[in-house]
């Protein structure tokens, strides 16, 4: 099954329009940076120092107060959107989950590009995989889709903390980090979130799972194989075990949401059977993920 159908681009355009209409005034491509630049928005005054551009001296002040002051203006900068896409083996336990992750990543990237933001896609597992570099402009969407289509999960486990550290070393500046993952990290996904949050990035997590992961229909004698580690566990699964599993899984989902909220990390959970358009709109509406 193709990851991106023939009308995928039309759906992306629709999402971009909807995002623009619904979140007008709140979601803007233009962002005021903390540095001062040459825009038209006045920010502050400061005393003249040798070497400053004479064109920024406020001559009216000099004439009235006999003081050399420079007018400072806010510099407008592009938002850098980093999409961290989990490409570990657990994401490929079913095609649906990984494909859903790819579609969500593509959608968010397109919306960001439409708002003149810069977007990078960084797949990861136990390490960072070859990335789609920071790119600006809708015209690059085809190459981004082509990149995503070629992307395949690797047969390794997830190590978010390690990947987060590598990411922070590589990124040119702070930005919006969107994490798309199933959060099955034996090392603890919370540690990875802590690393990202510590360095001042705005983080949003899209937690993607399969419906069958919550309510598996496994019964009898089984060799359970961990998709990421390849570890095998021989068990006899009964209805009682399934009840226990469902209880633990519900606790796990609750833990994921609680951990994110406590860290002021946006959190959205969805199963792969939710259409990606619905999921993206949900992300935009509830989390302001690309705002």
């Amino acid at each position, binding site marked *: 099954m193709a990851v991106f159908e023939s009308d995928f681009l039309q759906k992306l355009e629709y999402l971009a329009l909807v995002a623009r209409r619904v979140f007008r005034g709140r979601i803007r491509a233009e962002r005021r940076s903390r540095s001062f630049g040459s825009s038209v928005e006045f920010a502050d005054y400061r005393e003249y120092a040798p070497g400053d551009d004479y064109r920024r001296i406020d001559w009216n002040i000099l004439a009235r107060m006999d003081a050399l002051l420079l007018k400072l203006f806010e510099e407008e900068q592009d938002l850098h959107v980093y999409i961290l896409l989990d490409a570990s083996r*657990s994401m490929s*336990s079913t095609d649906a989950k990984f494909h859903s992750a790819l579609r969500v990543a593509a959608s968010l990237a397109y919306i960001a590009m439409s708002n003149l933001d810069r977007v990078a896609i960084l797949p990861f597992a136990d390490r960072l995989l070859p990335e789609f570099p920071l790119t600006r402009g809708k015209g690059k969407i085809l190459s981004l889709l082509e990149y995503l289509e070629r992307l395949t999960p690797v047969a390794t486990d997830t190590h978010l903390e390690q990947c987060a550290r590598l990411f922070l070393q590589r990124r040119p500046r702070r930005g919006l980090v969107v994490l798309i993952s*199933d959060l*099955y990290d*034996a090392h603890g996904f919370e540690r990875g979130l802590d690393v990202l949050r510590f360095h001042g990035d705005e983080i949003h997590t899209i937690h993607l799972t*399969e419906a069958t*992961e919550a309510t*598996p229909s*496994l*019964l*009898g*004698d*089984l*060799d*359970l*194989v*961990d*998709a*990421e*580690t390849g*570890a095998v*566990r*021989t*068990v*006899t*699964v*009964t*209805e*009682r*075990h399934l009840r*226990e*599993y469902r209880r*633990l*899984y519900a606790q*796990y989902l609750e833990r994921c949401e609680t951990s994110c909220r406590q860290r002021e990390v946006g959190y959205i959970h969805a199963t792969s059977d939710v259409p990606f358009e619905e999921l993206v709109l949900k992300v935009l509406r509830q989390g302001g993920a690309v705002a």
Partner: protein
Amino acid sequence: MSLLSPMALAWAAVALPIIGLYILRIRRRRQIVPTLLFWDQIFQDTAPRSLWRRLRHWLSLLLQLALLTLLVLALADPVSTGRSSKPVHYVLVIDQSASMKATDGAPARIDEARERAMRLVNGMRSQDEATIIGAGVMPTVLSGRTQHQPMLRAALRDVHAADTTADLNAAVRLARSLTGAQGEPEVLLISDASGLATLDADLTGEIATHACGRVTNNIAITGLAVRPRSDNPLELQGILRVGNYTDAAVAAEVKLTLNDNLFDVAIVELAAGEEKVHAFRTLNSEGGVIRAKLTKLDALASDNVASAILPDVGRRKVTLVSTGDLFLESVLRSHLWMEVMRITPEEYAKSPPMSDILVFDGFVPEPLPNAPSLYVYPTRSSRLWTLGAEINNPIVSDLPDDESKLLRHVNLKNCTFHRARIIQADSAGNPLITSSGRPLLVHWPDARAPVVLLAINTRAGESDLPWRTAFPILMQNILNDLAGSTEDSLSAHRTSESVALPLPAATLTVTDETHRMIPVSATDLGATIGPVSTVSVVTATSGNATRRIAFNLADSRESNLRPPPTTQPSREANLALGNSGLSWPWWVVLVALAILLSAVEWSLHQRSVID
């Protein structure tokens, strides 16, 4: 143990695919899961596969193989050693007596018997044969020897108990006489414990028996008889016999009705096991049915009611044709129900009167009247007899026939007869008293016009008979006979009896109170009715003649639903078709076990996935 279909053992080869499938089954499925985090938590405290779970697979295989073994054995149709593969001829003897109607079985004893017989038939193999004999008053073959089970079942469905006794010994002897190619048949007698107690000792060890019902209390009317007083038939004397077949004293209440009109309620106090006779009287002149009925219902309904027929006892006109015999006329007039008129022979010759009974004293009309008649000391021959010479001082040489109704209670010893006629009766005449071979009293028992001839001169001085008590008794018996008031018509019969009717069988129609036709047998003297299957008053009709006959159970052996203490319980062990499992052939048992094993296996499987 032997196998009737050993070729079926080839089905054991199915074990190979079962083992193959088992090997495939025990290979665990490999299931890739996104993470083992949760499964590790679930199984961290318990061993993921305990010893029991590992052994369960082997136990499951053993159960499946055992299941297959049972089914293969069932297909092979094993039989016990005592029941060889040779065909067996079963003879089912089913007691159809009244006690089998007792409602302490399922729901009646006869139903239990039918069910028991049905189980045997259902358990027959294809090569087995069976005969069904109903044990009633006479043994009856209800189904001839056949392998056709539907026919046997149909015959069993028609088996019903009758209100009669049963001759079980005759039925069993008939069953044992049905020897065929297979040798001695296997006989199963299905009766109740009371019936089994009547079996002859030489039969008890030869057959299998099954006792239906249980020990049950019963109170019964075991007898009802009514008769008119001899001197006044308008007054009825009755006796009622009631039996208490319980372990406690009871006061049995019996309602007595005459033509459905209550005339007495008898309370009969009875000790445990006691039978008592209760006497009663009533007046009747129109005839009808007198009926006794127990007010309290019990397990056997047939003996709770009894009936008796009363004759139409109106006053009878008796014409004495005589020149004058004071003693004879006085005897006739002493009967209150007789309206006696005396005429002379000349008057009779001029105009014969209409009369119920004619008494000719020293006179024989020509022709003989077609009416009940008594001829005393005839003076000439007729179509019935030839008159001979007179004899003096005849001596009664032959003792009177005690069974003759005319001579009942008549004692002729020391009677002196001075004069008598030599009579030669025709072949229809029945000499009752003879003197050296010469008949002194002759009876022509014609149904419509009976005739009695007394060859003795009864006039005073010619005989001392008029002074004897035998004279009025003899005359009463003769008048009763001529009036048609026989004992049979005054009382009742047992359902097991046959009653002769002096009516032509060809035109005779007999129905019971429910208008059901009763079969009639033709005899030389007319017809016989009975035994009848239900307690009832039957009506026999032939042309204008109608007669009613009451049939009652009246049998304490049938009414006693408590078996004698010496009665042994059912003996079915010597029947090859099984004892307690008589109707269950081995293959049924094996299939049942297989189903049980299937349930165990299913339970194991359920435990493995549900727990």
